[in-house]
């Protein structure tokens, strides 16, 4: 393709009408012919400017909610798990539902960063940073639940394989222990991956800031980045390796979470389809959450040129794809329950749609998860921000319902009809969950306030200017002396 004469200037510019564009040309990833300078100023500017009032208002609200959630946790830890609505058939309910829900959300970030990176999906660069941050915050929220839902929190260190005088090791056959390892590994690698990607951008902020404190802090975390060829070579290699390391983790962590249920004997839990089903569901829910956060952020920070309709379109397509996986899994569960001939399984699924939690299934799983993403078959829907946002909210809620139905739906009516029961949440249950939403949003607000929410360096790589052979004759924009722009 080198030197092909067909690359006419208007096409490179990209914003010409589609009728003019040759049929095989790609829509550019950054619109309006934005250059390096604009990207840096726009993204770094969001961090450097004075704190806007809306930020303080939002943070006060979310921080207040988070604080109240933490008070609820304190009450639960000090008084007993009984302050939640759990009982004897239902030993897990909102606690583990929230755990799986947050872990699921934590999937999208690393998937976008790692798998899309390895698959050379360049559009990922506009969203990967905030998606990864979201992952971390979601995993933090998730980790709260298995940590505090146990009866004796102060003994939770028994889960760690610490050689003590007791000489008792954790039970390596227990999926709950696998969870501990899977989630902590996932979190560690995700933090490393996110931080590695941040280093060049931190250096940019260090170089741009005038405050001495900020310069010092950004400087410390930028690890002495100079943007040298050597720096870049190591960086790229580290990033690639971490991407390779993260990819299996994306698949493993939710598979392991699904083992909590799949390895049990409870009807509707004891299911071989769970690992792929959970992973697909996690990506599904995670992408919905990415869009939930990105759509407002893009409007607030005027990033429409970087997070373009094309990005939203692509993410919508992934939601449609994974949503269809999930719908298939739901259908297959019913089929296998019938096909197995096992009366307990059959009953469990009958109970799912006609039992006491029937509307959770009809609204949460059927409408929110299976039907609402089907709108994304239509291009118009994928390009209408309101439809996209509506579907994302449906999926966010639907995925929570799905986990609730799996956990409580399986437990509340299992083998012996004598011990059937119901789960009714208490105010502590509800506020603990809302509290984690507060923690999540508070952390995200802090993130967008202090760190570049879009990977500047990576976005620049996908700009036409980054191509060494790129020439823009009529709008020549020379690289500033000293290569400042490149960093």
């Amino acid at each position, binding site marked *: 393709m080198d030197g092909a004469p067909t690359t006419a200037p208007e096409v490179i510019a990209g914003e010409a009408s589609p009728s003019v564009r040759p049929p095989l040309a790609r829509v550019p990833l950054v619109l309006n012919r934005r250059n390096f300078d604009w990207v840096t100023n726009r993204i770094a500017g969001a961090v450097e400017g004075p704190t806007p009032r809306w930020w303080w208002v939002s943070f006060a609200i979310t921080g207040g909610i988070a604080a109240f959630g933490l008070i609820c946790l304190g009450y639960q830890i000090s008084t*007993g798990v009984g302050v939640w609505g759990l009982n004897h058939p239902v030993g897990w309910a909102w606690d583990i539902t929230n755990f799986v829900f947050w872990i699921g959300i934590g999937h999208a970030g690393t998937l976008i960063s790692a798998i899309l990176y390895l698959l050379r999906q360049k559009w990922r660069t506009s969203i990967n940073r905030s998606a990864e941050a979201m992952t971390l915050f979601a995993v933090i929220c998730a980790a709260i639940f298995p940590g505090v839902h146990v009866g004796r929190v102060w003994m939770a260190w028994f889960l760690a394989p610490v050689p003590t005088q007791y000489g008792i090791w954790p039970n390596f056959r227990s999926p709950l222990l696998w969870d501990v390892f899977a989630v902590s590994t996932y979190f560690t690698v995700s933090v490393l991956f996110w931080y590695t990607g941040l280093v060049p951008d931190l250096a940019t902020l260090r170089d741009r800031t005038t405050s001495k404190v900020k310069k010092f802090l950004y400087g410390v975390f930028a690890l002495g980045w100079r943007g040298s060829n050597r720096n870049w070579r190591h960086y790229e290699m580290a990033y690639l390796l971490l991407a390779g390391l993260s990819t299996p983790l994306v698949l493993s962590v939710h598979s392991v979470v699904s083992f909590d249920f799949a390895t049990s004997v409870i009807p509707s839990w004891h299911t071989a389809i769970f690992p792929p089903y959970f992973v697909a569901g996690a990506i599904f829910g995670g992408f919905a959450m990415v869009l939930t956060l990105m759509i407002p952020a893009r409007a607030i920070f005027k990033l429409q040129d970087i997070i373009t309709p094309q990005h939203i379109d692509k993410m919508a397509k992934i939601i449609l794809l994974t949503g269809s996986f999930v719908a298939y899994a739901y259908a297959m569960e019913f089929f296998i329950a019938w096909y197995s001939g096992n009366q307990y399984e059959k009953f469990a699924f009958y109970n799912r749609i006609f039992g006491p939690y029937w509307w959770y299934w009809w609204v949460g799983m059927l409408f929110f998860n299976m039907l609402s993403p089907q709108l994304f078959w239509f291009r118009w829907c994928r390009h209408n921000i309101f439809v996209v946002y509506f579907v994302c909210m449906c999926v966010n809620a639907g995925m929570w319902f799905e986990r609730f139905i799996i956990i409580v739906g399986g437990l509340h009516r299992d083998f012996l009809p004598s011990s059937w029961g119901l789960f009714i949440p208490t105010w502590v249950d509800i506020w603990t969950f809302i509290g984690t939403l507060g923690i999540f949003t508070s952390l995200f607000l802090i993130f967008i306030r202090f760190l570049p929410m879009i990977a500047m360096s990576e976005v620049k790589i996908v700009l036409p200017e980054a191509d060494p052979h790129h020439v823009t004759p009529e709008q020549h924009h020379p690289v500033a002396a000293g290569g400042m722009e490149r960093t």
Partner: protein
Amino acid sequence: MKRVIHHPPASATGKQYWRSLNQLSDTPEFREWLAREFPAAAAEAGPDDVSRRSFLKVMGASMALAGFGLSSCRKPEMHLVPFTKSAEWVIPGKFLYYATAMPRREGAMPLVVTTVDGRPIKIEGNPLHPESNGATDVFAQASVLDLYDPSRSQRFVHNNKLSDRAAFEKYIAELRPKLAANNGAGLAFMVEATHSPTRERIRAELQKQFPRMRWVVHEPLLSEAQHFSTQISFGDSLKLIPQFENADVVLALDSDFLNCSESNLTAVRDFIARRRVREAKDNMNRLYVVENHFTLTGAMADHRLRYPASQIPAFTHALATKIAAATRDPNLSSVLITLKPPTKIEKYDRRWMDEMVQDLIAKSGASLVVAGSHQPVVVQLMVYGINAALKNLGQTLLVRELPKTPRYNSILQLASEIDAGRIQQLFILGGDPVYNAPRAVTLDRKTKQPVNWPGLQKKVPEVIRLGYHEDETSALSRWHVPMTHYLETWSDALTPQGSHVAIQPMILPLFDGWSELDLLAVLAGLPKPKGPELVQETFRATAPTGDFETAWTNFLRDGFAKHVSLKNREPKFNSNSAGGVAHTVWNNELPPPTKDSPEIVLVGSYSTDDGRYINNGWLQEMPSPVTKLTWDNAAIMSPRYARYLGVKNGDLVRITVTDTAKDPRGKLIQRELVIAALIEPGHADNSITISLGYGRKHTGPVGEEAGFNGYLLRTSSNPHYIVADHKAIQSVQVSKAGGSYALAVTQDHWSIEGRGLFREATLEEYRKDEEFVKKVAGDEELPKQLPTLYSHPKLDAPQQWGMVVDLNTCTGCSACVIACQAENNIPIVGKLQVAHGRSMHWIRIDRYYASAEPFNEDYGQYPENPEMVHEPMMCQHCENAPCETVCPVNATVHSEDGLNVMVYNRCIGTRYCLNNCPFKVRRFNYFDYNQRPVGKEKVGFFSVYQEYLGPLTEKTTADTIKMQKNPNVTVRMRGVMEKCTYCVQRIEEAKIAAHVRAGASPNTLIPRDSFTTACAQACPTEAIVFGDVADPETRVSKIKAQNRNYRLLEYLNVKTRTSYLARIRNPNPKMPDAGRIAVASLEHEHEKRVQARELGGPETQPRPRPQTPAPAPTEGTRP
């Protein structure tokens, strides 16, 4: 120089001594410990050459780490207080067992009490006594908790002010000459039925001193009808003793004789002995039951007719007429001839009656008809006549001579004397008449208006109350004297069958109380006894052979007087006097209840009896064996009647009883009760059953606000059922009151959903197909051995523990539930927590209704006429336990002798094991139930349940409650899981005892069947059997080898150690409902087999199931 102490070397011969139980049980860990002398970490320091420096280094590092550690985190902190003075006979940690007995309404229950360090902690039946045989019931099991009840009466009260013992003694001393002066005129006693010969002796003594005194026995649930009828029909001082072991066919007319607590354990055991099936050729008895509400007896029935209780006289009349016609018995006919046939009678299926009569007659001499003791005299008389006609007297019904006692006064006679102002001093010893005396106990002399007991009691100048609680009656008494518990008391009693048993104290009175005998003795001028003197004197009168001291010691050791023989008399039914009395009391105009005029049936509670156990948390929290309701009573009604009223479970209904009498203003007198409704399938229509004993105002924190007071409806003329007879009662109206009340029911779902969890068949089917249990739930399709991927923990101990539950003999009485609670320190959690599904019982008795009729529970359709089955469910000790694999911290593991062991210290409370338990038998401590009593506490403006208060608030569990705890069982804290352990503490105790016995010899096995679990020990019917399943000669192994043995959820391959024996029912194939019996496992694969059933003639073809909800009733017989 420090002296180095060396333990003496073990002697090669003679007695072995050991320093700790660890050493004795000689585990490998202990050997290692011995070898290293110091625990592992210390040995690493190199004990041979610990220099001062290295020691300091290690210690310094340890101290530093200790600071780093989680030293601020909560851990339960306990203190042990050793004896400052050693008590005689007490070996610390060693239990002592003493025989005693629990006085009860129908006769005492012989017991053996376990005491540790002078505290009674557990009650068992007396295995030496034939009437107990080691078994007990719920009330005996729970009575130990009453002893430690922190709210029991602890002080002398005079005119509602604190007083003391000296003042009361002075009062009695001053009273005696006054009484003697006028021969005791104006003196009255109101006592409970205790059947104590000593009390009777002192009463006679008092009678001698104060000839004009009155003596009244008041027991709200004790009916004199049976006693009176026996005297009429057979003669004075006699008691009828049914011999269930001789009866092939039993008909129970509104009689709950299988309720252990109502009657006695002998009846239950004898009946069950004839029901136990070892192999297919064994014979079984057959039980017909006619009753209005489901009882434990009804649940055991082969044929059950739900029928209004108030129509039992009419039904009995019809039955007697049929039997008289068939047997041509002149005696029965002569009774019946005096009775005008009832004009109208509740409908029933005539064939049901005809075939049952045929069956009874066919088994003449080996049949038995029993009527509930609360049925009126005429029913009792007819039933005696029927038994006479069936030649059952002397065969299945014996007449036993009891010591002659004079006829006591009734509360009604006392009431009229009080009203006449003739009573000056009233001693109320026990009981609680202000709460439970019948309403309108007498008519006012002047106004002719009915008066209630509280008003009357106020008229008595001096009321002296000996009470266990400061309750309603105490509040209206001049003196209240704290009463001792029977475990603090010297006394004696007769058992229901007349055997003389000893009651000896296990502990000194905790709160300085007086016993009934103490008070009577002081009043009789005897010194207040310090010990057994009074009882000894009574015992002396029974003329024991040989040396008195030895006989007395044996009496106390064995718990009963072996030398006193029981005399039976030749039973002779006196039809003349029976007919005469029957004629006078016969009421043939009692109309059948209707929708608009239902009957109200008042019965004793399975949990609180007549209300005396209301403050006992174990009993309050024990789910009713029938309704599974805890902490409350309710108006129990049939689904059809509930639909008519438009109520569902928990909705309040208003019951209004209007008397025919009018108040001074000319208004009809009404009594009203607003009570929550509870629907019970199998209840008679147009009938409401209310358990008495709830709704008390003044009682301890446990009993307050529990249930509704049924006594408010009760009058002396209608003590057991209330129906609008237009004589005393104008109308009975029931309507929806609006609003609802939270009922804590432990089992919401009544259907077994065809899951093959409970398996039963008819005897006939069992004989046709002895292996029928294997053909339920696909068990026969499973391979013998499923392949396994991993190696399981080895089960290589020489003794392997297992359990079997015979569903054929389990009556559901729940004695095991309370026995387990007492043995294993299981806390109560309170009504709210039960309603939340958090009850802590390690055994729950699953109760299912089985019906051959189609139903759909989701649409609120209950079966109208189901059968009931009970299935005790506790940890099944799976060999492949699903709970064990999922615990992340190894807190639940398997022992080599086959126990699924729970390690409380290791448990962090993930609850994963609970989730993965297919039987849902694991119990999680959602709160610190052992640290906090149930009930609410005021916090500012709020009233908060104590368990919801954070750790900064005060924990207020009474010290006395802690005294009950079994020291061999950990008291669990919040956040840990617990469950049935097969009473591992008893296993370990037996192991250690075996080691002690073995000494140096290698035979350390526990002797075969030498101990058992608490539940198995308490079970009156031996339905639960525990033991070594590795030894084929143990009872448990032999029972497991029977072909009715099955395990639950076999397809999961969890290999449960607890198995069940399928239930066999013995329906009469000619009965119209024969096809609807034994249907609990009628689903699924089993269905095909059921369709293949060939039963009876063409008219008995209801299998496949009838489509109509109930068989169309035909008009009752009208002779």
